[in-house]
């Protein structure tokens, strides 16, 4: 048995977006995991040595390539095995000392869990599409619950955190230009409003499962694009898998073609 039609298309969209995000920073991770981490391991007494073992992180980083077999031949067995490989790889990356600090692996983990659900759920179930779309939107929303609530503190609402993180410390466009053009007080005032807008937008993203599907998708699309545009291109690694889930909602949610 194999996936076909829009189910196969949705699977391929999510997996390819996932892989794009996962390997977007390969230029950083390949030399780090196969070179630096192997020659100069990083450890801590707080965690077992396994969590710093370079080979574990390196294997977890390249293993997802195996899912391409399921993309080309979307047989149920390949789809299930591939989805599990993605979830296990992302889970390892979330806890390994070489990779734990990158949000890419958290969004990848939750997206991979959706793929595991997608691979094992019964596609003939009349409620399958409804659950697939709602679960995908829930996974997207979940990524913004912690970040939104975690910013409800004076350092963010006053703009101090954004002022330092973006306006003073970032070297990506447009921040150097802004530093050269505007006084610190002006930038701090802008940072305060930008920070409050981000918190409001993240709270809205966290609430998208409660909204009508098209509105939720529009907010998701705008939100993911703004994250990349206002920070750094490298954040595409964090949002790519979520964009894949949004793509799956579009594909699965459209009316089925009449026979």
């Amino acid at each position: 048995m194999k996936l076909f039609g829009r189910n196969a298309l949705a699977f391929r969209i999510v997996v390819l977006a996932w892989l794009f995000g996962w390997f977007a920073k390969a230029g950083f991770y390949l030399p780090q995991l196969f070179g630096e981490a192997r020659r100069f391991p990083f450890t801590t007494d707080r965690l077992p040595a396994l969590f710093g073992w370079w080979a574990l992180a390196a294997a977890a980083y390249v293993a997802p390539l195996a899912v391409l077999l399921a993309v080309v031949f979307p047989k149920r067995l390949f789809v299930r095995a591939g989805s599990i490989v993605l979830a296990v790889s992302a889970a390892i990356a979330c806890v390994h000392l070489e990779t734990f600090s990158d949000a890419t692996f958290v969004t990848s983990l939750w997206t991979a869990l959706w793929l595991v659900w997608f691979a094992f759920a019964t596609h003939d179930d009349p409620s399958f599409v409804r659950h697939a779309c709602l679960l995908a939107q829930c996974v997207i929303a979940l990524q913004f619950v912690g970040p939104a609530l975690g910013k409800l503190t004076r350092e963010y609402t006053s703009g101090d955190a954004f002022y330092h993180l973006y306006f003073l410390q970032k070297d990506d466009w447009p921040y150097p230009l802004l530093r050269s053009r505007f006084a610190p007080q002006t930038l701090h005032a802008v940072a305060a409003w930008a920070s409050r807008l981000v918190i409001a937008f993240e709270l809205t993203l966290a609430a998208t499962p409660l909204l009508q599907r098209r509105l939720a998708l529009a907010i998701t699309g705008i939100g993911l694009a703004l994250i990349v545009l206002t920070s750094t291109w490298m954040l595409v690694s964090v949002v790519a898998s979520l964009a894949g889930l949004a793509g799956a909602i579009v594909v699965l949610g459209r009316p089925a073609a009449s026979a």
Partner: protein
Amino acid sequence: MRTEPITIGFYALIATAALIGFATPVSPALDRALMRAHQLRPASTGEWLALQALPKMYSFAHRAWYSEEPIEPTATPPGEAVWVNHYPARLLRFDHARAMVVRYGYAPHLLLRSSYRGVELSSALTVRIDGRTLQLVEER
């Protein structure tokens, strides 16, 4: 047709993670546990495994101060802080610079301070260089 167990299970997993996120503003104990994860000082391996699956990018305020000398966690911060979006302990991983740290046999000391709605956690950390290994250690 009844909802499949795998579907119920996935909704429950997402709901649990979301509830933990929503508890952040009202649970100082949770905040401290999350700060320990951000500072790479989990109370246990289990705590690390559980908290690492939670989305927490750009949450809490994290500042770091570099020092040439060993530093106390309660010390008055020396000089200007570097603000870090999340996981400030990663500064001591010296990504792509470990060869230099090992060659010099020296790493700076770092004071980390995470804060959120009145809850604060400070750590004084450095790395001990043991052969070619960089081991994260806490200042006593």
